[in-house]
C-alpha cells in the first residue's frame, strides 16, 4: 500500500514540475513589463531599476525561474502587489472557503446523481429513465451563472429565504455559513450531479449485464440486494474515481459561481489577481490549484486501489 502511494507520488513530482514551468513561462510570455506595472503611475527610471533589481528581473529567465521555485519550496510564494500580504497567507484565507463550497457541492451532486443514475439504469428504457436523462441534460446545458442569478432572484430577492451573497466561516456561525453557501453549492452540485448520474447509469448498465449479477439473482436474493450490493459495489469503482476528479475540478472551477455569489474563495481571488496584474498571486493560486488537482488524482488512485480486491491482494 505504502509503496503504491510512494510510486504515485513519484509520478506526481515531475507533473508538478511541468506545471510550474508552464505557469512561470506562460506568464513571462504575457505582453507588458511587470516592472512597469509595479512602478505604477510614476515610471521613474530609478524606481524601475530598483524594482528590476529587487525582483531579479534583470537576471536570465532560467535564474528567475530558479528563484521563484526555490522560494516556493521554502514557503515563500511572494507578496501580493495589491494587498501587500504574503501570497501564501492569502491562499490560506481563501482555500478553506473554496474547499467548504466544493465539499458541499460534491455532497449535493452525489445525493442527487448517484441514486438517479442507479434508478435510470435499473429502469432503463422506461419513463423514469427518460425523465432522469432529460433532467440531467438540462443540468448539463444550463449555465451555472444563469442558474445562480435565477436562484438569487427567486430565493433571495423574491422569497427572501436566503442571503444573496456573503460568507461566514462555519466555525463562527455554522447556520449562517450554511445559509450563505447552500445556493452556490446547489448551483455547482446540480451540474456535477448530471455528470455523475450519466456515469453511474452507464457503469450500472454494464455491471447489471454481468454473469455475477445473474448468479446473485440465481441465489434468490431480493432485487434490492442484487442492485445495491452486488451490482453497485462493482459500479462504484469508476464513480469514485470520477468523483475525486470532479472534486479536483471544483477547487479550480468555481470562478463564475464565486463571482455571482461574491464568495471570497479561490475563484474570486484569481479573477481579482488577473484583473489587477497581481502576478505573484496568479502564479501562487495556479500552482496551488494544480497541486490540489494532482492530489485529488492521487486520492482517486488510492480509493480505486482500496476498493478493488484484485489490486489490494496483489501486494
Amino acid at each position, binding site marked *: 500500500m505504502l509503496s503504491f502511494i510512494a510510486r504515485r507520488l513519484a509520478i506526481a513530482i515531475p507533473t508538478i514540475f511541468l506545471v510550474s514551468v508552464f505557469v512561470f513561462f506562460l506568464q513571462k510570455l504575457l505582453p507588458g513589463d511587470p516592472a512597469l506595472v509595479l512602478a505604477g503611475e510614476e515610471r521613474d527610471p530609478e524606481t524601475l531599476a530598483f524594482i528590476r533589481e529587487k525582483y531579479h528581473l534583470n537576471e536570465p529567465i532560467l535564474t528567475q525561474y530558479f528563484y521563484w521555485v526555490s522560494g516556493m519550496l521554502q514557503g515563500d510564494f511572494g507578496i501580493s502587489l495589491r494587498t501587500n500580504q504574503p501570497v501564501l497567507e492569502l491562499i490560506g484565507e481563501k482555500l478553506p472557503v473554496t474547499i467548504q463550497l466544493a465539499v458541499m457541492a460534491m455532497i449535493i451532486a452525489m445525493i442527487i446523481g448517484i441514486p438517479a443514475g442507479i434508478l435510470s439504469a435499473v429502469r432503463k428504457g422506461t419513463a423514469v429513465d427518460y425523465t432522469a436523462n432529460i433532467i440531467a441534460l438540462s443540468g448539463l446545458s444550463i449555465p451555472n451563472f444563469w442558474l445562480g442569478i435565477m436562484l438569487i432572484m427567486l430565493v433571495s430577492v423574491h422569497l427572501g429565504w436566503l442571503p444573496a451573497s456573503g460568507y461566514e466561516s462555519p466555525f463562527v456561525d455554522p447556520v449562517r455559513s450554511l445559509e450563505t453557501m447552500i445556493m452556490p453549492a446547489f448551483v455547482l452540485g446540480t451540474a456535477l450531479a448530471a455528470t455523475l448520474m450519466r456515469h453511474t447509469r452507464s457503469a450500472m448498465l454494464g455491471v447489471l449485464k454481468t454473469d*455475477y449479477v445473474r448468479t446473485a439473482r440465481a441465489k*434468490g436474493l*431480493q432485487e434490492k440486494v442484487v442492485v445495491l450490493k452486488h451490482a453497485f459495489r*462493482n459500479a462504484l469503482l469508476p464513480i469514485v474515481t470520477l468523483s475525486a476528479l470532479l472534486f479536483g475540478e471544483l477547487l479550480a472551477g468555481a470562478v463564475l459561481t464565486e463571482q455571482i455569489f461574491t464568495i471570497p474563495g479561490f475563484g474570486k481571488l484569481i479573477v481579482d489577481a488577473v484583473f489587477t496584474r497581481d502576478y505573484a498571486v496568479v502564479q501562487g493560486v495556479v500552482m496551488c490549484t494544480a497541486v490540489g488537482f494532482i492530489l485529488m488524482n492521487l486520492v482517486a488512485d488510492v480509493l480505486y486501489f482500496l476498493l478493488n480486491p*484484485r489490486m489490494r491482494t496483489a501486494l
Partner: protein
Amino acid sequence: MGERPENQANHPDDPPLLTVENLSIRFRNAAANTVDGISFNVDRGETLCIVGESGCGKSISALALMGLLPMPPAEIASGRMVFDRRDLLTLSPKARADLRGDRMAMIFQEPMTSLNPAFRIGDQIAEGVLRHRSISQADARRRAVEMLDRVKIPAAAERLDDYPHQLSGGMRQRVMIAMALANDPDLLIADEPTTALDVTIQAQILELMRTLQEETGTALIMITHDLGVVAEIADQVAVMYAGKIVEQGPVDAIFDDPQHPYTIGLMSSLPSLGERQSRLTTISGMVPTIETMPSGCRFAPRCPFVHETCIARAPELTSLSRNHLAACHFAPLEAHVVEAV
C-alpha cells in the same frame, strides 16, 4: 458409465419433480419461437441431459425454468412448468425468488465471471444460505466451510476469505457448485458447467458433480453439447435442435438406437478410437436462424433423408418404444431403410 439405481427417491405414484409441458419462448418481434413446444419430466434424483448445438434454445429454456430470463424481451408464449406441484408461471415473483437458490439452483458456463469479484467467496456462499434459512452468520459461515470441503477445495477454512480472482477456473466452478448446493436443492440446473474448463479439469468437475448428486439425491438437468458428458452422467436425454426437442429417451436408447437423423448425425460426428476409416463426419449446413426458420421440419434443410413431407409439415414427437420419442416423419428409420433396399 456405471449402473445407477432407478430413481431411488421416487415412488411410482409420485408426480415427477419437474414437469415441463409444451413450453414455448419467444423474443419480442421475433419471427418464430426460440424455444418451440418442448416437454419433459425430471424425477427426483434423476439426471436429464439436454443436448444440442449452441443457439438451439437449451440455455434459454434453463434460464426460463429458473426465472432468470429477462422478460421482456423474452416472453413465455405457451406452456406450463410445474415444479414440486407448484405451477411456476402462476407464482408471484417473491415466491419464485424463494424457490430460487433454495429448492432449485443453477450453475453456469463461465466460472471466471460468475462470481462477484468484489466479495470473498465464503461470504458469497453464506449469503445464499442466510437468504433462505434463519440461521446465524456464524452458522452460515460454518456451512460455507462445509460446502467448500464437500466440493474438495483443499484447506477450505483458509480459502473462505479468498477473492474469486485468487482461484483458478476449476476452483471457481467448485465454489459455484458449493454455492448452488448449499441449501440442498431438489433440482440443480447446470448450463455447460465444464465447457470453459481444461479437459482434465472437466473430468474432475464432472466426477465431483456425479458424486455429490449420489450423496444428496438432487435431480440434475445438465445442459451440454458434449456427448461424452451425456454418456458419463445422463439417465434421460433430450436432444434439441433449433428450439425443438427432436428426440428424447433413456440414455441407452439414445446411444444404442438413435432414431432422429440429427441425433444420428451427432453420434457419427464423434471421433472414436481404433483404425481411422475416413474423415470425421459432420452435419452439413448451418442451424437456421430465427428469421430463416423452416415452416416444416426445422432440420429438413440439413437432413440427408429429407422428403417432400418434411418440408411441408413439421413432424410431431412420436413414441417409438417405452419412453423413447423422436420427431421425424420416418421414425423408426429401420422400416424405411428396409423399404429402400
